[in-house]
């Protein structure tokens, strides 16, 4: 029965092969394959909710010699986010790429990207994680190239080189771990790793590599050009999902594998970088002249918030208090994932109608594309962190954790960051709802506008109301370090 866990990986992979073999049917195969992957994830989640974390020892070998797939609360929530976002973006892409001669390649790589994301969230083995990271990085780079412009290729190449540097640093850490502990299985390592030079150096290498991939300030510089120049559906998944994969791994390493190794000082450094990212990213988003660039800078800022949690988590002893803070982190990550993908899809609709995405010339958008303007407003609510969005609850919990731990330093950062987010969102809405001829009236296609509005609704309403479920799922851990 545990074979259930292979399906979220096998189904998108199988669909990718079919899409490669039958390029003329690729759109159909792509959407259906994404849907099947989503249903596999839903089946997995039903079993996790009923009976807790699941392990699948591949090939029937004991984990260690073989590779184990594992799912627990954290990985399940990431899986749900990625497959739901992927489903909506796939429906949108079926229109976006319908006339492109590149659609055959798009769908194959799209399905490979989903394969990589699901494999990464399910993997319970460090070296296997390296392979999934590379698969994710390469398929993301190729998708980002599909625009074909010089700027997009240039951004993609820089993204590739830095991504490779990141994964090599990760692999170096994996080598040291195998040298010191003689296994690559993460459950066994969760028990075995203790403070010492091996753990220290390995953790710093792996974290360093992952920080490049998750674009934490000052390693963020590759992100805005790469995300802003990719085709809209690709930007949506890059910003919403791909950077989150690296963040997920950092959480796994810091909270579960290297639980006893992490020191408050190192967590503080990352927290400070996160704080700078919040302020700088929000400021750059406020200055941005183009819609997609604004969204990309906003991603830098939103990722900063997630890293603010690390020093707080490190300060709280394991248990209910830490699970509360971790739940808030995950909720914030999920809300951002849904809201930002909605935002990029809406930006794509506007770009295709108006032929540009210069913010100052977006007058008339609300009249010509009311659904899309509504999507941007909804996603904006979630990005700022206004009620009833999931991020409002998450930020509330973040504040209360700041009070509990007495790390007052973060308070002004959160306040200023939120104000700046409000400023850049309202500046955009001001232009979009202003009268003007920037975007002419046009026939709207439901398959383009509706996925985005659904994603925005999930971010703003559903996650707000279902936040309790997120907090219930997070403490279910498959690793010894997480739930003692």
């Amino acid at each position, binding site marked *: 029965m*545990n*074979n259930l866990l*292979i399906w979220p990986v*096998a189904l998108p*992979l*199988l669909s990718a*092969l079919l899409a*490669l*073999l*039958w*390029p*003329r049917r*690729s759109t159909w195969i792509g959407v259906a394959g994404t849907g099947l992957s989503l249903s596999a994830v839903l089946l997995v989640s039903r079993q996790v909710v009923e009976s807790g974390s699941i392990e*699948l*020892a*591949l*090939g*029937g*070998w004991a984990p*260690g*010699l*073989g*590779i184990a797939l594992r799912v627990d609360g954290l990985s399940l929530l990431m899986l749900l986010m990625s497959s739901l976002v992927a489903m909506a973006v796939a429906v949108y892409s079926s229109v976006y790429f319908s006339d492109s*001669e*590149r*659609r*055959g*390649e798009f769908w*194959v*790589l799209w399905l*490979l990207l989903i394969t*990589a994301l699901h*494999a990464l969230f399910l993997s319970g083995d460090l*070296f*296997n994680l390296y*392979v*999934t990271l*590379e*698969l994710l990085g*390469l*398929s993301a*780079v*190729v998708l980002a*190239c*599909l625009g074909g412009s010089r700027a997009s*290729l*240039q951004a993609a190449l*820089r993204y590739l080189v830095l991504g490779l540097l990141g994964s090599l640093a990760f692999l*170096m850490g994996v080598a*040291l771990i*195998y*040298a*010191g*502990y*003689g296994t690559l299985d993460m459950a066994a390592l969760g028990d075995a790793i203790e403070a010492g*030079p*091996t753990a220290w*150096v*390995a953790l710093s*290498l792996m974290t360093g590599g992952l920080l490049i991939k998750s674009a934490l300030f000052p390693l963020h510089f590759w992100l805005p050009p790469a995300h802003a120049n990719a085709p809209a559906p690709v930007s949506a998944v890059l910003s919403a999902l791909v950077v989150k994969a690296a963040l997920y791994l950092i959480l796994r390493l810091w909270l579960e594998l290297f639980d006893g190794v992490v020191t408050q000082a190192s967590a503080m450094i990352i927290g400070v970088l996160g704080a700078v990212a919040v302020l700088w990213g929000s400021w750059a988003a406020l200055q941005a002249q183009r819609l997609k660039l604004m969204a990309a800078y906003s991603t830098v800022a939103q990722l900063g918030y997630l890293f603010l949690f690390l020093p707080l988590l490190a300060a709280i002893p394991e248990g209910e208090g830490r699970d509360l803070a971790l739940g808030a982190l995950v909720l914030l990550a999920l809300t951002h994932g849904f809201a930002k993908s909605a935002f990029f899809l809406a930006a794509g609709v506007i770009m295709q109608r108006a032929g540009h995405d210069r913010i100052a010339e977006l007058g008339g958008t609300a009249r010509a594309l009311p659904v899309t303007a509504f999507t941007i407003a909804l996603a904006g609510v979630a990005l700022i962190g206004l009620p009833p969005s999931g991020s409002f609850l998450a930020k509330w919990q973040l504040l209360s954790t700041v009070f509990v731990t007495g790390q007052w330093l973060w308070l002004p950062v959160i306040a200023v960051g939120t104000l700046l987010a409000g400023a850049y969102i309202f500046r955009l809405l001001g232009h979009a709802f202003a009268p003007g001829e920037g975007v002419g009236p046009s026939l709207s296609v439901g398959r383009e506008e509706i996925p985005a509005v659904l994603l925005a609704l999930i971010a703003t309403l559903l996650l707000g109301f279902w936040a309790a479920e997120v907090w219930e799922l997070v403490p279910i851990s498959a690793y010894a370090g997480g739930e003692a």
Partner: protein
Amino acid sequence: MAEAAIGAGLSGALLLIALRDETDSNLTALKVSQVTRWLVDLFSLIMTVLIGWVLWLTIYVEPVERLAPLANAMLEHSGVSNPVTAVLLNYRGYDTLLELVVVLAAVLGVMVVGRERRGYRQAGPVFCGLVHWLVPLLIVTAGYLLWIGAHTPGGAFQAGATLAAAGIVLRLAGNDAAGLPEGMWLRWLLVAGIGLFLTVGLGVTLNDGQFLQYPKAWSGTLILLIESAATASIAAALVLAYRGGRPDGWLSVADKDNDREVSS
């Protein structure tokens, strides 16, 4: 060590192709200041010392028992007698499956990015004569490497690389396609390795096994089958990467009415 040498050589070849294409695009990220240089040097020095310290501790001072005894003890259940092949295709077969997916993603990327390079002039009689015995020899060597992979170092990757070498020799001699088929057949060739691996992996679950848990009596045969398909796919991918972009007929399968190729 043989594997390492082959791999290094292959990446070397790819890099040399880039050199042939002369200078780089002037894609300078940010001009590096003297201070940054100095900092990076310092950082590199510190990291080298730290990594070296850990290696000294873990290899020399107090080496731990790793997975070797377990891997060797389980060898008789793996269906092959070469331990490295057992790890690659059995214990950690899932890694190898995903590795083949990485190859596919990269080669699709090469085809998305550009069209293939111009081929070479038809070779003169001396080189043609060389090709006439070199290509069959490489193909036979590839088959041999694949076959002995079960017992001694060798296997799909080495065989695929050797087969790809045959394709590269063909292209140097003026065969632009480098021995690869066109249209649908090329797509099937790229899919073969992953497709068979995945089918076998899922197929064994019908028989109450875990994913990729080969039935014991069949594991040797299944591994050889998977390796053969993987060899073909790896060779095709390497040759396509060498050709440097999508072949002219690649997109036509998707766009034009090309029923003949689809049904063949």
